[in-house]
């Protein structure tokens, strides 16, 4: 048994009641300034008759959501080694800056002279990201990684169409790729061709050569890849794809593994996307908002979404350039998740050139430390490149433990929650059976890494001695395992549906 207990609120057969089950008629959690007396000329048949929302005082609203927050785990709670998500510490000064009136209370359509600060920040952020990735221009519009990937696919199509090569219908994706890659390519209308990984866990070059043709629009690649391994033959990969006239797209999810050490632009990538909520430490917010800027080499610049932030040397002012005849247009409203951009910019300034390199050094060291410390433990094995190096994340397979005890990656992950740690990613990438993908990030102190390794060892022992304890884990959390089968068989997706059920 572990000493950890997650906070929980319990009443009858629930944790915290639903907001709809709280409050009383007549209560209010707001105040409004006095209304002007105007005759509204809206006919009754356009007005609503009733709205069934709960009525709560501010006190009740605050207590309810405070209690909910107490039953949630974040990076600020403890280690969060979710592979490929880079759950690093989010500096609080970044939050403060994004909440300043001068950031939060400016409208995107304001006269340009009244938003020079915002435009300057975006311009400078773009310059920083371009330098970090080794690209020429960066579009800050996309709201998330997958959005950035989708935009990259649209840019790819525009580029080939411009060159009279619009027939290229395929995008190549490694079998270890994150699901958003093929999904984004498919959304853009491409046929997805999957290439296998070789025995070293890298893209199989022979298979890639066979798959690359005059139909290839692009290859989407993460480097380091989702196994945490550096694609060391990236220059050859670039040669193969460029050789058939295709573009190379970099999925920036794993940039934390090479920050300041190598640049995707120098590896041959033509389009590079970033996850500001990963590498650049903007908070994940329980799923979002993030930002997925897309960087491009010079020849793709003309297709970028509008507007692009430019600087007028003569008049010494920043402006939004809409005069871009080859632009693909808009991929969302306005100019990007500005509130997130402020945080990323501040983070880059806080770390500085040396700090960013130190980030990847510490992240890579932390991951290699776990790799070495755990790889001696019976039950855990490295499917690929076990004697080599990993970058910022490491993928173990617990297939040996499963064969021995019947306990797999999911049960181990659930038991880890009882140790007060968040579980790593499991069952991903799909090419590793019983995968546990561990990304510690540079934010973890050595003691936490030791604790994690100890816990994984202890759990393997528990699997041998009392596997049932693992199957019923977690028990120290606010709630135990949930009936996900029932949830998907008879979905109850809202209060309305709950009342009907």
């Amino acid at each position, binding site marked *: 048994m572990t000493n950890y207990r997650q906070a929980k609120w319990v009443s009858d057969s629930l944790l915290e009641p639903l907001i709809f089950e709280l409050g009383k008629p007549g209560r209010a959690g707001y105040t409004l300034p006095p209304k002007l007396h105007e005759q509204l000329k809206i006919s009754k048949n356009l007005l609503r008759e009733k709205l069934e929302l709960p009525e709560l005082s501010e006190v009740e609203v605050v207590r309810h959501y405070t209690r909910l927050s107490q039953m949630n785990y974040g990076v600020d709670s403890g280690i969060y080694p979710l592979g490929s998500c880079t759950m690093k510490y989010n500096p609080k000064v970044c939050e403060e800056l994004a909440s300043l009136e001068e950031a939060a209370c400016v409208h995107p359509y304001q006269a340009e002279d009244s938003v020079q600060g915002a435009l300057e920040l975006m311009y400078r952020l773009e310059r920083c990201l371009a330098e970090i990735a080794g690209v020429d221009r960066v579009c800050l519009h996309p709201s998330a990684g997958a959005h950035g990937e989708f935009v990259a696919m649209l840019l790819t199509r525009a580029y080939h169409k411009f060159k009279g090569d619009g027939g290229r219908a395929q995008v190549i994706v490694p079998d270890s790729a994150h699901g958003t890659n093929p999904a984004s390519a498919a959304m853009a209308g491409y046929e997805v061709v999957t290439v296998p990984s070789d025995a070293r866990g890298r893209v199989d070059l022979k298979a890639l050569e066979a798959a690359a043709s005059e139909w290839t629009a692009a290859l989407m690649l993460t480097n380091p890849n989702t196994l945490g391994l550096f694609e060391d033959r990236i220059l050859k990969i670039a040669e193969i794809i460029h050789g058939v006239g295709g573009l190379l797209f970099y999925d920036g999810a794993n940039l934390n593994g090479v920050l300041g050490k190598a640049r995707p632009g120098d590896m041959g990538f033509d389009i590079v996307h970033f996850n500001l909520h990963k590498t650049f430490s903007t908070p994940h917010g329980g799923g979002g908002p993030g930002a997925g800027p897309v960087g491009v080499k010079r020849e793709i610049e003309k297709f970028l979404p509008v507007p692009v932030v430019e600087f007028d040397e003569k008049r010494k002012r920043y402006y939004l350039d809409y005069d871009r005849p080859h632009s693909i247009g808009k991929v969302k409203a306005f100019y990007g998740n500005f509130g997130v951009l402020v945080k990323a910019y501040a983070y880059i300034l806080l770390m500085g050139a040396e700090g960013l390199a130190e980030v990847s050094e510490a992240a890579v060291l932390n991951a290699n430390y776990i790799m070495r410390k755990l790889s001696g433990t019976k039950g855990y094995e490295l499917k690929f490149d076990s004697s080599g190096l990993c970058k910022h994340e490491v993928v173990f397979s617990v297939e040996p433990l499963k064969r021995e005890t019947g306990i797999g990656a999911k049960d181990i992950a659930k038991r880890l929650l009882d140790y007060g740690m968040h579980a790593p990613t499991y*069952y991903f990438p799909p090419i590793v059976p019983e995968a546990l993908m561990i990304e510690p990030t540079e934010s973890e102190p050595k003691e936490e890494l030791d604790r994690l390794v100890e816990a994984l060892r202890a759990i393997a022992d528990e699997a041998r001695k009392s596997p049932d304890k693992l199957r019923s884990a977690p028990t120290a959390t606010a709630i135990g395992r949930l009936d*996900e*089968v029932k*949830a998907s068989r008879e979905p109850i997706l809202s209060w309305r549906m709950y009342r009907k059920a």
Partner: protein
Amino acid sequence: MQEGLYYSLEHEWVKIEGKLARVGVTDYAQRKLGDVVYIELPEVRKQVKQVAAPKGKEMEMGAVESIKAVSVVYSPLSGEVREVNRELQDRPELVNTSPYSDGWICVLQPSALDVELKNLMDARAYAEYLKKLG
């Protein structure tokens, strides 16, 4: 598995019923999938082709879903879908509990039964195949 049925490499079973063929997924398939939460049934009158390599969209006959995976159902014979098991929409778990009886997925009118039956396995061959899969 059961005798008297024919099997495809994709773990579908076929029962010949006069001029028609009833189709479902095997016990092996339902075990691999885990708890079935949803079945995407094919449309009645859909034309399907017997599954062969390389697999194409015209060979697909719906899908069976668990919470973590989706398994496409491939048609073991070419023909037209005549009937689908609507009961599965309310009770997808029938695929787990009775894959060979109440968990049937659809009934086909085969267009080339004599020729295509040769491409399917009988119970013995399927048992051998399962052994090889380990």
